[in-house]
């Protein structure tokens, strides 16, 4: 015969201070798990959705995997436009975007700022980068910039410092903010976009970092790759944008592995803290447990009741932590080497966080309960 469900619930209410402390400790552990899993999920999502499978990037073969280090001849864009058949064209406009992209010190009006990612582009860029949407203001004219939604997070500045009409300074020039854009959570959201010719003048460079082109329906990236192989004098390489971000995913694999390791460590610490608390809680109830055995309840029934208490507490702590994570952590911008991304408390994060929480309840309750029940009823009844 099992103990009534209400018995476990009432037991939790009987010691409100201990229950509250245990609940707080469990909720803290689960929030920590949410933070780490939210970090991993945010980073993965940012890289996963940054690529468009129809976009091919052409950049220097000598720059390894880093486009910021790439330098290609300015005529590359015209050469690609003239040589490739598979580039998407509409209304006489070839969807091919020459870009100069680099990380540089950006200073905001309030003397804040930091290392920012600046991309010099032409008006064709949004035709190729199809996720980009101007959410406020307008496209930058000469001497102006358009800032991504997460650019302020990347710079460590306030949103107000990058508001429309404000001025930012980089490469010895002052630039007025003319608009803000989003990119569906992609990597561009942490960038600052300006006019390509202006940026080339400011940086005293005539070259490009890359050319991004949009493939026409049915066209294959291999045509672009073949062109790059044939023009060995240009020292170019072509890679689909999705493949490029997949290589970045690989690049950040150690970070992800480390983060998952932190999840395991935090969970283990939580289990030990839970065990400690439950040992204390059960130790004070040895006589109560022996009494239950004396009036006829089997050890298994008492064990199940104790696990039920632990699980109830852990589930409540998980719900509390989940509510806090969803309202305060979800969407918080995090600065990272490649730009910025937002913490993402999604279904996977909820599953892992709540799973760890409930596991804490079960694993925390079982060992002390088994220890208490192992003693004989006669000795336990005399326990102080």
């Amino acid at each position, binding site marked *: 015969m099992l103990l009534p469900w209400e018995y476990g619930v009432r037991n939790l209410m009987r010691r409100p201070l201990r229950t509250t402390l245990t609940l707080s400790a469990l909720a803290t552990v689960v929030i920590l798990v949410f933070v780490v899993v939210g970090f991993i999920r945010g980073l993965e999502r940012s890289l996963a959705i940054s690529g468009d499978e129809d976009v091919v990037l052409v950049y220097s073969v000598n720059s390894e995997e880093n486009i910021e280090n790439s330098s290609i001849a300015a005529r590359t864009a015209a050469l690609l436009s003239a040589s490739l058949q598979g580039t998407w064209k509409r209304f006489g406009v070839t969807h091919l975007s020459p870009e100069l992209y680099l990380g540089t010190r950006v200073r905001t009006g309030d003397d804040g700022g930091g290392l920012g990612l600046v991309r010099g582009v032409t008006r064709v860029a949004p035709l190729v980068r199809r996720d980009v949407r101007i959410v406020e203001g307008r496209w930058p004219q000469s001497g102006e910039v358009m800032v991504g939604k997460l650019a302020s997070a990347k710079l460590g500045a306030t949103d107000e410092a990058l508001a429309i009409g404000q001025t930012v300074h980089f490469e010895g020039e002052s630039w007025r903010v003319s608009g803000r854009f989003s990119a569906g959570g992609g990597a561009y959201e942490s960038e600052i976009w300006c006019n390509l010719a202006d940026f080339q003048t400011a940086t005293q460079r005539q070259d490009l970092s890359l050319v991004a082109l949009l493939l026409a329906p049915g066209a*294959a990236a*291999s045509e672009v790759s*073949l062109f790059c*192989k*044939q*023009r060995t004098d240009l020292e170019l390489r072509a890679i689909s944008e999705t493949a490029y971000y997949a290589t970045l995913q690989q690049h950040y694999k150690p970070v992800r592995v480390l983060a998952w390791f932190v999840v395991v460590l935090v969970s283990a610490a939580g289990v030990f803290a839970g065990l400690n608390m439950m040992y204390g809680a059960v130790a004070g109830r040895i006589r109560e447990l022996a009494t239950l055995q004396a009036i006829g309840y089997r050890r298994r029934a008492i064990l199940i009741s104790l696990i039920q208490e632990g699980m109830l507490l852990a589930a409540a702590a998980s719900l509390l932590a989940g509510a806090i994570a969803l309202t305060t952590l979800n969407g918080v911008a995090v600065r990272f080497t490649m730009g910025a991304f937002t913490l993402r408390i999604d*279904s996977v994060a909820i599953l892992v966080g709540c799973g760890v929480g409930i596991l804490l309840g079960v694993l925390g309750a079982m060992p002390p309960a088994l220890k208490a029940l192992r003693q004989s009823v006669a000795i336990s009844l005399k326990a102080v």
Partner: protein
Amino acid sequence: MRMLQFMCLAAVGVLAGCSDQDVAQTTTSDATTDPATSYVVDSEPAGAIPVGEAREAVEDEQAVTLVGTIGGSAEPFVDGLAAFTIVDPKVPYCAEEEGCPTPWDYCCTQDQVKDNIATVKIVDDSGNPVASGARELLGVKELSTVVVDGKAERDEQGNLTVAATQVYVRPSE
């Protein structure tokens, strides 16, 4: 409920992933065990010249037989097309005992590669590149020595491309 849907999808994904992998492995296995296609010949074409010499002597549209080693960059093959770059066999690459993970990129002799590299594209009867990876089609890999027979394509910059119709793969030493 959404969690349940997620778990079901994950399970289906795992199963689908496993079956896809099986298919891919089977295909690769079949292709590598049977590389003899209409483009691969059993005997070496006569009169093959090395890439460096060809870059100096061969003109556009000229029939040419070229010998070279597949390499020149970290990724000498073009994904999805039967095309790759070859380097003159006289250009040395890192020896195996040097521990270089990608000796075919000629990282230590890049200055010599510039004038001793050519692109090979295997073309069909209509002159279009064959839409199949060269590894599977020809059974070659990085640092394989090949003799290709085809027509030269030159440009004003001195780049050499061979639109090849026949390939002989020299047995590795």
